[in-house]
């Protein structure tokens, strides 16, 4: 394919600069994003200690007891279904807080003990998955969420530009370079080939991620502009019309219990797998009853699936806009945009595919930085023995520090959350502090030591911390009474497996780089 040479050169220059500006932010976004594919499993892994699940048919009795003694907890509660067939559930009631995710609420679990008396315990559910998700959404920036997300939007737009320019640069040599990975003495060529192969084959994924991220960051701006110009400032009315409908209170009918609700839903949507039932008090004594769940045959709005709103007295579906499989085609189209970003379609296989694509995405940005450094290093050695430029030094230290800081920081919060929540301490606040401490330590170390040494020190550090994740579960299984409850679910054990594999590869890379560093210092 022939393209004007000066255009290719122009786009190459833009690609390089945009890449240098955004590469490390994108590394954090993609690494954290790949891990959020398992965030429900991580939260389960962290907090398998404090819920007291009971058989589903006992919930009406439990709810009656709560109504008598702690009716305040019934204003906003969720019954989490603990296993695939929904035969066991645990009660979580919320006080205070706001929004769909009950942010800032105090949570209580309630259960009947052996003597059939009601026990209410304050719990500190860990939001470790959510915290990793926040790091993903804010590209690791420590500012307030709105500001960070706004910056993320600009990074996403530049990332889109990098994709388009990168594609144009690659097209002229497409035939020659498509499958080539030239491993050999020319290090720069090798990194370029890896960068290209990964980039070209995951281009559709990257374009989707770039465009959806721009949308997530700027949708308020887009809506505000459209509202002012085309909607005569009454766009809010349209959004209000889409709120989940509340069932008006009825004195004569009986409110369906959760098992009855689930049976009524089963008749209307046999493929839907409920994961939780929630009830909230609406205005004027009305009730908002929803069932969250999954339907792996259809795209879903998030990894947690979709939800349906039901009539509290009859169990009839009153809103299905977010219900996989039952939503109208136009809503399904919108859902698919979300599903394409979150990988919430196609079940477990897609979960893994998105994990791999996300992690390899992080690697593309890392390799991009290495390419820049290698090119500058070569130019430096050709132009006599001039000392390396300051910009070169800064970028190589930053590349090592930021990538390892992000990896070590995330492993550290997963590990710490597991132990803290075992002692019923909320790990949420300390997780955020811990992440940024580990992150800044790594960056500082990368600047203090020479890049070659820093990179094996820091990779080794990443490996050791990550190794702590499977080790603490082994400790729980074989350890003394001091240990946490062992994790036995299959998806949760996957976390141990992934962490063990990742730790081994970090340690192996550290070992290799150490050998090279020692060799270089001997010459």
């Amino acid at each position, binding site marked *: 394919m022939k393209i*004007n*040479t*000066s*255009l290719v*050169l*122009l*786009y190459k*220059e*833009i690609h390089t600069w945009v890449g240098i500006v955004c590469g490390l932010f994108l590394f954090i976004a993609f690494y954290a994003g790949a891990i959020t594919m398992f965030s429900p499993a991580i939260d389960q892994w962290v907090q398998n200690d404090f819920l007291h699940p009971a058989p589903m048919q006992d919930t009406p009795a439990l709810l009656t007891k709560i109504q008598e003694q702690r009716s305040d907890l019934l204003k906003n509660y969720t019954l989490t279904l603990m296993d695939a067939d929904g035969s066991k559930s645990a009660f979580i009631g919320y006080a205070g807080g706001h929004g769909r995710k009950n942010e800032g609420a105090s949570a209580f679990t309630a259960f009947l003990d052996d003597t059939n008396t009601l026990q209410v315990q304050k719990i500190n559910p860990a939001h470790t998955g959510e915290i990793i998700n926040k790091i993903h959404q804010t590209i690791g920036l420590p500012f307030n969420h709105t500001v960070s997300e706004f910056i993320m939007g600009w990074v996403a*737009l530049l990332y*889109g*530009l990098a994709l*388009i*320019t990168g594609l144009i640069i690659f097209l002229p040599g497409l035939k020659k370079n498509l499958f080539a990975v030239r491993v050999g003495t020319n290090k720069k060529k090798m990194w370029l080939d890896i960068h290209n192969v990964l980039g070209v084959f995951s281009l559709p994924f990257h374009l989707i991620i*770039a*465009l*959806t991220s*721009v*949308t997530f960051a*700027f*949708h308020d701006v*887009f*809506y505000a*502009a*459209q509202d002012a*110009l*085309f*909607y005569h400032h009454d*766009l809010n009315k*349209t*959004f209000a*019309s*889409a709120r989940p409908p509340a069932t008006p209170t009825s004195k004569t009918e009986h409110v369906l219990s959760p098992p009855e609700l689930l049976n009524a839903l089963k008749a209307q949507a046999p493929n839907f797998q409920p994961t939780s039932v929630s009830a909230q008090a609406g205005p004027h004594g009305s009730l908002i009853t929803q069932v969250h769940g999954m339907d792996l045959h259809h795209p879903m709005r998030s990894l947690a699936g979709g939800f349906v709103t039901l009539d509290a007295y009859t169990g009839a579906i009153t809103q299905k*806009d977010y219900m996989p499989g039952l939503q*109208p085609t*136009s*809503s399904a*189209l*919108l859902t698919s*945009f979300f599903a394409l970003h979150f990988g919430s379609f196609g079940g477990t296989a897609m979960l893994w595919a998105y994990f791999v694509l996300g992690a390899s995405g992080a690697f593309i940005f890392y390799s991009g930085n290495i390419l820049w450094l290698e090119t500058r290093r070569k130019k430096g050695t050709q132009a006599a023995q001039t000392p390396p430029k300051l910009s070169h030094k800064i970028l190589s230290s930053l590349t090592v520090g930021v990538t390892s800081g992000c990896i070590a920081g995330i492993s550290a919060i997963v590990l710490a959350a597991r132990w803290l929540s075992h002692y019923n301490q909320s790990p949420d606040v300390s997780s955020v502090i811990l992440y940024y401490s580990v992150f800044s330590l790594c960056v500082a170390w990368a600047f203090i030591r020479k890049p070659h040494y820093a990179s094996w020190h820091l990779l080794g550090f990443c490996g050791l911390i990550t190794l702590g994740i499977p080790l603490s579960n082994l400790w729980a299984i074989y350890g003394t009474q001091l240990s946490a409850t062992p994790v036995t679910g299959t998806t949760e054990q996957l976390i141990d497996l992934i962490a063990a594999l990742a730790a081994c590869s970090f340690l192996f890379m550290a070992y290799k780089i150490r050998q090279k560093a020692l060799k270089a210092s001997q010459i």
Partner: protein
Amino acid sequence: MTKPHLYTLKGWLGKSLAGVVMGFAVALAFSGILINQVFVSRSIVTVQLAMWVMPPLWLACVSVCFLFSTAYRAWFFMSTLALILFIAGYV
């Protein structure tokens, strides 16, 4: 044979600002055509679709703004395009 056009990074700031600012206007104006001429009646779905159409158009404008020979031309052509689309959306 005509000499191939020479693309350069000269005036990149003005060009990229044209792409970002006028590109936003172009995307917004196009969504206006969808809202006023295509969808006409408004629902929670059309409102969202009209929003989702903006990012791809915006990105396209940001990507091509460097192809104009001068920043001045980039601003001129992009704002003319935006103006035409706005008029099409309103009439």
